[in-house]
């Protein structure tokens, strides 16, 4: 497996804090996988994502993208926030095309990429609408499309689906999985929902710093499981994860 992200002995202490939030954490993310991350609230999931995304600089240790240190936010590392952070003054197309415009792509190139993405997230009919007129699920799909427009190498999600109702969340899971299959990207998905972690992750990273294990990655035989096939084995697997966390 080729590594795309390498986190090496990462320690992160917030300025003014008396103890580190991340302590000598090591993690490899493989090119083309979906890694889901779970852990108790406050265990440092967002801190890890923010460091990989380049918003925070390691106190010690390093984070590499393709072997090169990450020095700051970068279009190669896309991020989808929980509250989508879409720009209310731009319509759907302009939100999706924002990154390409900042990077001075030609208008025609932007238009063609935006229109492909609009189809992929099934929002072609909403292209001229403003974000405030969309439902929560549609907004999240716009946010995903916006993060994908730059064709980043890794796309990170910080509890991006947590605020959605169950049906909408299921639709979004399918959108995410379809995009992953067709675009061969690497996804890093933080969630507080174990079923979501199992459904979406090729591998699952469990963060339990309170037990002295900063992060541990396990294989997931139930990736993209059909909910009809949930059985006793699945429940046992899920319970094992739960027991590691609590």
């Amino acid at each position: 497996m080729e590594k795309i992200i390498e986190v090496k002995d990462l320690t992160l202490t917030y300025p003014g804090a008396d103890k580190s939030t991340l302590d000598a954490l090591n993690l490899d993310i493989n090119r083309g996988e979906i890694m889901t991350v779970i852990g108790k609230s406050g265990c440092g999931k967002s801190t890890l994502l923010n460091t990989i995304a380049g918003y925070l600089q390691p106190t010690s240790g390093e984070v590499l993208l393709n072997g090169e240190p990450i020095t700051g936010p970068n279009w190669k590392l896309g991020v989808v926030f929980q509250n989508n952070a879409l720009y209310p003054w731009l319509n759907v197309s302009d939100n999706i095309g924002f990154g390409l415009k900042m990077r001075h792509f030609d208008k025609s190139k932007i238009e063609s990429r935006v229109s492909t993405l609009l189809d992929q997230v099934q929002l072609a009919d909403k292209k001229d609408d403003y974000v405030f007129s969309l439902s929560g699920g549609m907004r999240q799909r716009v946010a995903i499309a916006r993060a994908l427009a730059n064709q980043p190498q890794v796309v990170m999600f910080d509890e991006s689906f947590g605020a959605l109702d169950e049906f909408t969340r299921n639709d979004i899971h399918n959108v995410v999985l379809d995009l992953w299959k067709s675009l061969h990207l690497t996804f890093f998905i933080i969630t507080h929902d174990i079923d979501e972690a199992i459904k979406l992750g090729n591998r699952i990273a469990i963060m339990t710093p309170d037990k002295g294990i900063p992060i541990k990655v396990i294989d997931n035989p139930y990736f993209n499981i059909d909910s009809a096939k949930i059985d006793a084995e699945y429940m046992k697997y899920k319970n094992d994860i739960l027991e590691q966390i609590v």
Partner: protein
Amino acid sequence: MKARKKHYWGITVATWLVLLVVWQLVTSLKITPEILLPSPEKVISTFINLSKYGYNGIPLWYHFMITMVRLLSAVVLAIITAVPLGLISGRIRIIYSMFDSIIQFIRPIPPLAYYTLLILWVGIGETSKVVLLYLAAFAPIYLACISGVQKVNDDYIKSAESLGATPRQVFFHVIFPSALPDIFTGIRTAVGMAYTTVVAAEMVAATYGIGWMIINASKYLKSDVMFVGIIILGITGVALDQFLKVIERKIVFWSGKS
């Protein structure tokens, strides 16, 4: 989303009608002397006369226009300077530390308090008036810009950075539009401040303008002219604010929705 509060327009109109009727009654029953309270007809006929023949040899529209020109030129100058300075101060602590205390110092001083000083410095003409109004309008816009910048959703900035925006692009494409609703609030406050100040300044030192017309008429006890001037000021004030609200709704159409 905030539910719109119902407005009973019928009651609003009825209240005005009652006021008019009371005014009419009080004057036609001669409860108060005409010199203190002119009748509605008198005010209307004075308005028509003033429109035809002007006041003190100067057309009424000219009095009105000069007041508006003083007001608007000062507000435009304030917008051009306070918006960039406020936005930058909201972002860069060094600039903030440089300007904020000065503006906090000037802000609570009633502009008329330093008007005479301005007249001594730059003369009694238009410059001192525009500078005075400019100083009155500057602080509300500047402070609104700072608060607008400080309120910008952090995730907006982080997403822009992850989408490849440079710091300059973040400023123009994210921070500026995010702060626009606050900028508008600041501009509306500034226009209100400048409007009060322009009338006061015209009363102190001018030879034309609606404020001057009112104060001049008071010297000759022409209460009908004073009424015309005051009514023009009231209607103009409301119209200005409504006009700004319409523009605001067009430009920051997303404000308040989410």
